[in-house]
């Protein structure tokens, strides 16, 4: 059987047959693909940890008739601190779910692979805020998809937005001026500070974003806006988000 190598991250796992698992992998070289890991559920298997959710490894895969088969794994990333932390696990699930939904099979996008690696590394760092890091991921993935929210001019009337509190409309894909915002039912309020942070994020200023201390109230508004924007464009509810929201309340 011909084999190939790939840098791979486990996005999803599904039990299959006696003790096998079907993995959804995000690979740098070949994009998203499904592969079967034989015997992965037997706890004795040494590779089990390398095949857990979010694990990153250098893999050798063998071409199979239906699904390719995981032949060898060599651990690369570390997700130790995501494990056993409910919030970090939930946000890592959100990253996996989104990437699984937005990517087509076998269609590699380097920027998305790098973004996922970076985000999982950040979620694994105990001194970082998983909420802030996941919000950054949301803005970057929206950017990748071409759905960056409109934050400079009102998408309703085209007027430049003043630096003031405003209304975020997922339907119109951006921040509305006061006059237009009054007619929009679906959406959420944004304080002026949230708007400033969103602009910084949209401009891909990671360095500045990393230096900000974002309060929980601001994060609530920023997350509401970005999550609504993404769910609107994907036209579906994200299951991980429902879980995360249930943790918040």
């Amino acid at each position, binding site marked *: 059987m011909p084999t190939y190598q790939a840098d791979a991250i486990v996005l999803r796992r599904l039990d299959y047959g006696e003790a096998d698992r079907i993995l959804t992998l995000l690979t740098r070289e070949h994009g998203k693909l499904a592969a079967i890991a034989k015997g992965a559920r037997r706890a004795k298997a040494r590779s089990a*940890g390398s095949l*857990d959710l979010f694990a990153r490894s250098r893999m050798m895969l063998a071409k199979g008739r239906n699904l390719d088969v995981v032949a060898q794994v060599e651990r690369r990333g570390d997700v130790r601190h995501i*494990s*056993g932390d409910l919030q970090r*696990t939930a946000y890592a699930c959100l990253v996996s779910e989104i990437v699984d939904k937005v990517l087509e099979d076998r269609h590699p996008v380097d920027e998305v692979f790098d973004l996922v690696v970076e985000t999982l590394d950040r979620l694994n760092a105990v001194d970082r805020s998983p909420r802030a890091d996941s919000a950054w991921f949301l803005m970057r993935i929206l950017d990748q998809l071409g759905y960056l929210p409109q934050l400079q001019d009102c998408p309703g009337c085209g007027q430049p937005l003043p630096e003031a509190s405003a209304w975020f409309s997922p339907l119109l894909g951006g921040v509305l001026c006061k006059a237009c915002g009054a007619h929009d039912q679906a959406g959420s309020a944004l304080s002026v500070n949230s708007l400033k942070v969103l602009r910084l994020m949209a401009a891909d200023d990671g360095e500045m974003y990393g230096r900000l201390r974002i309060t929980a109230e601001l994060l609530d508004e920023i997350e509401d806006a970005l999550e609504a924007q993404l769910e609107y464009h994907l036209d579906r509810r994200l*299951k991980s988000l*429902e879980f*995360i929201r*249930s943790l918040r309340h």
Partner: protein
Amino acid sequence: MAEVPAPLTRVMEELGRLPGIGPKTAQRLSFYILRTPRDSVERLAAALVDVKARIRFCDECFFIAEGERCAICLSSRRDRAILCVVEEPLDVMAIERTGEYNGIYHVLHGALSPIDGIGPGELKIAELVSRLRREPVSEVILACDPDMEGEATAVYLAQQLAPLGIQTSRLAHGLPVGGELEYADELTLARAFSGRRSF
């Protein structure tokens, strides 16, 4: 192309709904059934109907039972001060095989899995909490699988149980990370039990 007769399609569809059975396996199994003598197919069908009619989940711990309570909950020889929480009924069987554990169980019927939309409400967690309020349990062992979802579930449970003031412990590592309890060999599982550490 010849059309597949409806009764055969129906068998393939039903088998294809079983976990771990893809369309190809469902096809293979269906043709196997076609070739099998009538009486053994009838035995299989009767066994399926019978198990559904006579086996249910225990009202108390949600392990398999023939009546309202399972054999473990009914036994007078079990130590009711110690309760072990597992994800699946098969995990109870794996632990029972070690012969190392004499307490009672609680089966969650799954693990928290945000991607699949499985939150606390989908598991037997509220039932566990109300059970612990009622019963004189002094130690809870969280024996969720040693993988990402299992760890998340254990941490969530520990948070939920903290206000009850019951000693909570987690199976010792040595169980390979990323694996499943049900597949651990007896010696490893027995060791994990005796080396359990408090949360």
